[in-house]
Each structure stands twice: as structure tokens, then as C-alpha cells.
């Protein structure tokens, strides 16, 4: 009987093995060499949140903007707590991985920071990008960097913004990254959050009132809420305005309280420094007096929250403090 069969020779076997190995290595090296932010994405996906915050804090410069790219649809949970002297900034992450997979009922591991102040909604969702804006908050000395965060699922339509605001957003390259400008409410795309600056009205989700009492009204929730903001002294005056626009009122109020606590401690630090340096010819009793007043005013933040800015004379104290510091002779400024 004739046996039918194909002689599977060693040449074929060898070719198949080698071919498979060569293909594997070729694909592997190709992915290695594409230059993606693999490390950052994997770290972030692995719930290492520090990298979200490190590169974008300011030192002595004004503002910084950054884009954080993620591989999969991601949710960032922003929890602000008032535990301890400085309060706590808690961040946790949920990642949607796999097709059709539901979000996990609770987010991943929580990271806590005492020295971070992130202004955003309680839950920020992004398909592939998160946008960060870092602004120094001076009151009148630098208190902290405010990190404003929003995801690529959010679009903010600024209606008739201040010239400074428009210029800054443009210079930071944030136009088209969740922020658009418009001349009227009806020009805003459907589904976007309409932010009305003074002069625009009707159909607003957020309304900004400037003037003596600076307030932001949130009109898109179940009930109308409002928070107060202030313009910082110097060039970088809209830090709190951006913070209020891009975050929920609850997060904003909590972070304001944390910031005022930090302000109080820094005021005490500068007071100690002034008393330490005064015998050496640097320091001022007048500045020390205002530092004491500033520290005292911040005590009422827990009851007043952001209305501290409008219901106390804290802004006058801050302005006086800055003027007196600038007047210090022999170029011995305290801050």
C-alpha cells in the first residue's frame, strides 16, 4: 500500500522557527523604538499619581500648562479633606480597560498629599487626555501652586472673557484643549459648559461677577451655588478665578480653606523670620504687625469659607502687607 504523506523536512521546521523568532523580535524592537510615553502611561495606569503633579509646579514663574496622556479611558477622583493642620489632597484613579467592561465600583489606591491643591470636579473623566494648568497663588507671598485639572470630555466655552484671560489661555496653548472662546452664548457648542464673563448672560452654566464682590455662580446644578474669589496681587491675578471655573463649588471651598490654613502657617513663619532678623538689621515691626493680622483673619475661614474674601478685611490686610514689604529699606524684603 502506498503511504501518502508529506515529508516535513528539517528545512521547513527550521524556517518556521527562525521566521517566528525574527518576526517576534522585529515587532518587539519596533514598539520599543516608537518613542511613546510608555513609562509615564504605565506608571499612571498603575495608579502612580505623583507623576501627574510633579512636572508642572511653578517655581518663580507665572503659570504652566501641561497635557497628561493616558492609554485608556480614565477617571480621576479628587477628594479634598480638612483633616490635620494642612488638610489633605486625595487622588485616586479608575481605568476602563477592555472592551465593554464596566467601571469598577470603587476607584483604585488612594494617594494623599498635604502640599497639593487640585481644583477640579469631584470626578474628572478623560478619554485620552487630561489638561492641567498650574498657577501660583500669592497672598501676598507665595502660598502654593494651584493645579487646575479637567478632562478631554469637558469643554468650557468662555463667553466674552477678560482680555487678560484670553491672552493667557492663548499663550499657554489651551485653546482647543477643552477651552474655547465665543462672543455669545448661542455660539457655544451643544454640551459645552458655558462660562459667562461680565457682559454675557442668559443660558449660562457658570456666571462670573467681578467688581467689588467677586463671585462665581454655578447655575448648572440642581440648586444655584456661589463661591467668592479674589484677584491675587501682581501679574498673576486670576489664579482663583480659573480654579473656581474649572472645579465644583465643594472642591473649591475645601481647597480655599486648606489654602488659608497654609497662609496662616506661612504668615507665622515669616513673622518668626522677621523677629529673627530684626536684630541683624533686617525685619520690620510694621510688617510683623500685618502678618499677625493676616494670620488672625484666616482663622475665620472654616465658618466663612470663600466669603472670607468679601466679608472680612483680609484683602486690605494682604494689600497693606505687600506695600509694607515693598517699602522695606536696604533691599531687605521679607518675601
Amino acid at each position, binding site marked *: 500500500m502506498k503511504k501518502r504523506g508529506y515529508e516535513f523536512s528539517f528545512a521547513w521546521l527550521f524556517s518556521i522557527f527562525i521566521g517566528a523568532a525574527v518576526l517576534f523580535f522585529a515587532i518587539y524592537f519596533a514598539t520599543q523604538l516608537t518613542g511613546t510615553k510608555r513609562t509615564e502611561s504605565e506608571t499612571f495606569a498603575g495608579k502612580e499619581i505623583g507623576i501627574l503633579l510633579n512636572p508642572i509646579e511653578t517655581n518663580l514663574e507665572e503659570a504652566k500648562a501641561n497635557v497628561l496622556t493616558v492609554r485608556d479611558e480614565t477617571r480621576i477622583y479628587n477628594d479634598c479633606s480638612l483633616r490635620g493642620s494642612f488638610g489633605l489632597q486625595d487622588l485616586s484613579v479608575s481605568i476602563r480597560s477592555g472592551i465593554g467592561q464596566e467601571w469598577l465600583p470603587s476607584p483604585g489606591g488612594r494617594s494623599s498629599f498635604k502640599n497639593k491643591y487640585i481644583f477640579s470636579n469631584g470626578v474628572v473623566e478623560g478619554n485620552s487626555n487630561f489638561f492641567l494648568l498650574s498657577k501660583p497663588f500669592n497672598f501676598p507671598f507665595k502660598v502654593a501652586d494651584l493645579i487646575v485639572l479637567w478632562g478631554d470630555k469637558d469643554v468650557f466655552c468662555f463667553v466674552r472673557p477678560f482680555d487678560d484671560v484670553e491672552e493667557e489661555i492663548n499663550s499657554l496653548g489651551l485653546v482647543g484643549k477643552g477651552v474655547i472662546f465665543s462672543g455669545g452664548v448661542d455660539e457655544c457648542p451643544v454640551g459645552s459648559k458655558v462660562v459667562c464673563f461680565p457682559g454675557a448672560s442668559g443660558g449660562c452654566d457658570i456666571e462670573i461677577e467681578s467688581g467689588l464682590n467677586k463671585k462665581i455662580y454655578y447655575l448648572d446644578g440642581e440648586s444655584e451655588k456661589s463661591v467668592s474669589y479674589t484677584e491675587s496681587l501682581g501679574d498673576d491675578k486670576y489664579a482663583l478665578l480659573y480654579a473656581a471655573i474649572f472645579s465644583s463649588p465643594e472642591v473649591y471651598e475645601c481647597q480655599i480653606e486648606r489654602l488659608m490654613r497654609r497662609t496662616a*502657617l506661612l504668615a507665622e513663619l515669616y513673622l518668626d523670620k522677621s523677629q529673627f532678623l530684626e536684630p541683624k538689621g533686617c525685619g520690620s515691626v510694621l510688617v510683623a504687625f500685618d502678618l499677625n493680622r493676616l494670620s488672625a483673619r484666616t482663622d475665620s475661614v472654616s465658618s466663612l469659607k470663600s466669603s472670607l474674601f468679601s466679608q472680612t478685611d483680609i484683602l486690605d490686610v494682604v494689600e497693606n502687607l505687600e506695600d509694607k514689604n515693598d517699602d522695606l529699606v536696604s533691599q531687605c524684603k521679607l518675601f
Partner: protein
Amino acid sequence: MTTLFRSVSYSKGQMKIQQMAFVLVGLMIFFGVAALFYFTIFSSGINEQAALLREREAQELVKRLAGSPEFIFSSGSDCSACVDFDKAIVLKESSEYQNFWGLNYLMIEKVYPSGEGECTRSNYPDCKTITLVSKTGELSTRTAFVALARWDEGLGYFRYELGRIHVSV
């Protein structure tokens, strides 16, 4: 003739076995070479990458600390590399900041002109170190150079000296 056929079939089988043996040897050599190539390139790359990442991590950490309002020096000229040494000595006495930065160890060292001993209000600024946080002691610290700025009574202005920040996370 039968004998011839028999010897041919045995030889053919033996040749097949021998060919397979060579194939396997060749495969092993190939994968060995590939593994050698991989470890030669990437393990040396990984060591260098780890050292670079450690250096960058230290740089980022120190940049953040030096930019922290508790250390920032904004009294004189613009100096992003500067740390306010006067604030540091005052901060040393504050218990509020022990857990603030999430560090196990934080120390500021005056490198040049050098001094001796831990700084106190009485020996400042002729001292060497200001230890602000010391939970684990000086183990596996990251360091980075900074400029220490302080008010100099004799100079009537701010003096800038060379220092180092030591941190351990």
C-alpha cells in the same frame, strides 16, 4: 538488492535524526545569541537608565522643595536655584511641618563655606546642617546642589553660599 534497500532505509532515518539534531542545535545557538544580544544591549542600558532616572528624580524632588513656599527665596533677585537659609533655621522649630512633605529625611547642608555641627539659633550661620525631618536617619538619600541665601549683617545684603539638600522618601 533487499540488503541494499534495507541499508538505504536505515541510513535515511539516521540522516533524518541527524538533521533534526542539527536543527535543534542551530535553534539553541540562535536563541542563545539572541538572548546574549538582548542582555548585552538592554542590561547595560537599564543600568544607565536607572542611574539617570534616579538623578532626574532627585532633581525633580529638589526643584519642588526649593520652589516650596517654605523654602523659596524671593527677597532678592530672581533665583530659582536658591533656598532661603533664614527661613530654614526658623522652620526647624516648627512641629507642624514634620509630616508635610511626605519625606523620611530632609536636611539642608552648607557646603561652602563649611561650618561644623547642627545649626541652632546660637551658632547660626557658622554651622553645617539644618535637619528638618529625621525619621529614618541619613539612609539612601538623594541630594542636589542649591544656593543658600541668607541675610548677612556685615554685608548689609543677602549672601549666597553653596549648599545641598538631602532628602529621603
